[in-house]
């Protein structure tokens, strides 16, 4: 029995000793982290639209963003339909109504609060945000969506531009003792774009940017389970086609097809992950398939101007003047299927150096005198301790030693305290002497006697 106990002790002790200790990591002095993601982003570039932002309009479905920087200060926002900061936060200015707020969003902030917020629009469709001093997190999950349902005038495509199901995004920034991390991902089970012209199943874009104060690292992937493009189906990721025999480089679109699409104002950019590491800063952007539709080129190709000009000529001049700018709108629409970004930069903690020594008074003589340190009659703070080298005067700290109240006020203060303590202590004891009754006008002394002494 004793032997088995000894063996067990040796085993457990050895195991504990064998476990390597956690490496001591240097704390971070400063950091800036940012992560955002959305499975679908639609951006509209039209300078005529009076919104001071670029793009002028945007709509991110199932959007999440988390920012954290030293202080620490952090902000998280999640939205199932995020119109961009210009509208999402600038609605009061845009509408000239201070009470206007964009309703489909959930904010969390640190240190101002709220630390946690959640809004569930429908079962399975929820937005959550969290922010504290160590981590900021945002997530938006939606089960099914199709948008917009309104037909766009002049475009020969289905009214349903985007339809998706089972989509979500998640962004998180966190800082520990030794590193700062920004992680984000966007995923969607099924996405149908432009009325089914482009269909993607199993989208997932994810990024991670890390900085430990010494160097930054960035990783990211964009993966499709399958992609159906104009009826043709392939499975791919950002590096190419993934098949049973391995990953092969993604075939380029036929040049003739590309040219024809470009003539119609339509261009398709293949998925890509861009990583950038510069010292301690790391940035990674994963963008899925990007489809750009330049309606200016499309309208020009369709030759609508030749049809509209005769009609416009029939209108009154004032009305025509008001209508023409609107008819000349030619926005550029950009659809991004799966976008996730992460940025991280941090700087290591720096050991605080002692403040430079205070210069001694001119008349101190302790420094100018060379080897006669301490011989001077310097004022406060000018004296040099005996063990100090010449020129290394110490700076007195107010809380470093007992306060000094020299002179009569100091002694009056101390004596007053002593008298007050003595009076308070003896008041009850000597009250009988002073008032003749000992607190009891029957002449009974005060105090609690030991009743057991009988």
């Amino acid at each position, binding site marked *: 029995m004793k032997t088995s106990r000894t063996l067990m002790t040796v085993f457990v002790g050895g195991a504990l000793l064998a476990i390597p200790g956690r490496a001591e990591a240097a704390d971070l002095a400063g950091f800036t982290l940012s992560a955002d993601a959305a499975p679908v982003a639609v951006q509209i570039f039209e300078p005529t639209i009076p919104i001071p932002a670029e793009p002028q309009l945007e709509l991110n479905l199932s959007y999440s963003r988390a920012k954290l920087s030293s202080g620490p200060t952090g902000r998280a926002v999640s939205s199932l339909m995020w119109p961009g900061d210009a509208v999402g936060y600038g609605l009061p200015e845009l509408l000239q109504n201070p009470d206007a707020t964009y309703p489909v969003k959930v904010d969390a902030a640190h240190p101002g609060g709220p630390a946690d917020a959640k809004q569930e629009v429908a079962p399975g469709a929820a937005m959550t945000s969290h922010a504290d001093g160590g981590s900021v997190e945002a997530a938006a999950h939606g089960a099914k969506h199709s948008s917009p349902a309104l037909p766009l005038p002049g475009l020969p495509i289905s009214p349903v531009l985007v339809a998706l199901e089972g989509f979500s995004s998640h962004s998180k920034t966190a800082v520990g003792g030794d590193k700062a991390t920004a992680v984000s991902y966007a995923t969607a089970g099924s996405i149908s774009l432009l009325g089914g012209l482009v269909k993607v199943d199993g989208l997932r874009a994810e990024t991670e940017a890390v900085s430990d104060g010494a160097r930054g690292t960035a990783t990211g992937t964009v993966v499709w389970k399958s992609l159906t493009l104009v009826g043709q189906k392939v499975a791919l990721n950002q590096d190419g086609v993934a098949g049973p025999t391995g990953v092969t480089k993604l075939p380029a679109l036929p040049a003739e097809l590309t040219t024809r699409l470009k003539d119609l104002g339509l261009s398709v950019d293949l998925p890509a992950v861009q990583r950038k590491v510069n010292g301690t800063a790391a940035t990674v952007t994963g963008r899925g398939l990007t489809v750009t539709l330049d309606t200016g080129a499309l309208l020009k190709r369709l030759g609508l101007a030749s049809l509209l000009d005769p009609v416009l000529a029939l209108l009154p001049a004032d009305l025509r003047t008001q209508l023409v700018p609107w008819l000349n709108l030619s926005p550029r629409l950009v659809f991004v299927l799966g976008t996730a970004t992460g940025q991280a930069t941090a700087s290591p903690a720096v050991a605080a150096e002692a403040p430079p020594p205070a210069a001694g008074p001119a008349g101190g003589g302790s420094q100018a005198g060379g080897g006669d340190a301490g011989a001077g009659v310097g004022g406060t703070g000018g004296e040099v301790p005996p063990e100090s080298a010449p020129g290394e005067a110490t700076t007195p700290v107010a809380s470093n030693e007992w306060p000094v109240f020299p002179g009569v006020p100091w002694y009056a203060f101390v004596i007053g305290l002593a008298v007050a303590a003595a009076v308070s202590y003896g008041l009850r004891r000597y009250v009988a002497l002073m008032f003749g009754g000992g*607190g009891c006008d029957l002449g*009974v002394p005060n105090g*609690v006697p030991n*009743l057991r002494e009988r």
Partner: protein
Amino acid sequence: MKPILELVGVTAGYGRIEVLHGVDLALPRGAVMALLGPNGAGKSTLLKVASGQIRATAGHVHVGGAHVNGASPDALARAGLCTIPEGRSVFPNLTVRDNLRLSTYAGARAADVYGTAFDRFPRLAERANQLAGSLSGGEQQMLAMARALATNPAVLLVDELSMGLAPLVVRELYEVVAGLAADGVSVLVVEQFADAALAVADRAAVLVHGRVVATGGPDEIADELANLYLGSVT
């Protein structure tokens, strides 16, 4: 000889409600005094004043020949004034032995506490490992008394010793009280039911509406009790 507990013109109450209106009472050393009175007369309030739990708003509280107005309950308890409150206040989820062991925090040795308790109350020895909550009312009262005796009191204040107990058990408990007095402990017993208390008391007082209306020997008080409780019929 000065009484070990003396109240002179004591006035006390709860906030703006005055319960005791100039009470005079003296407990001789080594005596058992029964403080009788109807419900609501102020008997328990008087015990609280005597034990320092309530401060007298006027008058004098003298203990052991000293003026103790304003003395804290713990100071009086350390001096040897012990209170057994109404309702016994034992710990129902602890065993008898553990309840007694709590008394050792006052400094007594556990063996001494057990010895004293089990000598006085042999029934507690039989139930030493039983939960206090499962004891009968009389046994719980015995436990409360045993716990008080562990402090080696010089003055014992007992509130409603007989409440809820069978007459046989009450008689047994009062025999213990008489034994304590024989050992030199001064006992002030607050009671609504006079017979059992008067049987062992050396002195008795009747408190009605916050005033002591009679003081005297037990026989003397027993004869006048009905009139004192209900008011004299003239």
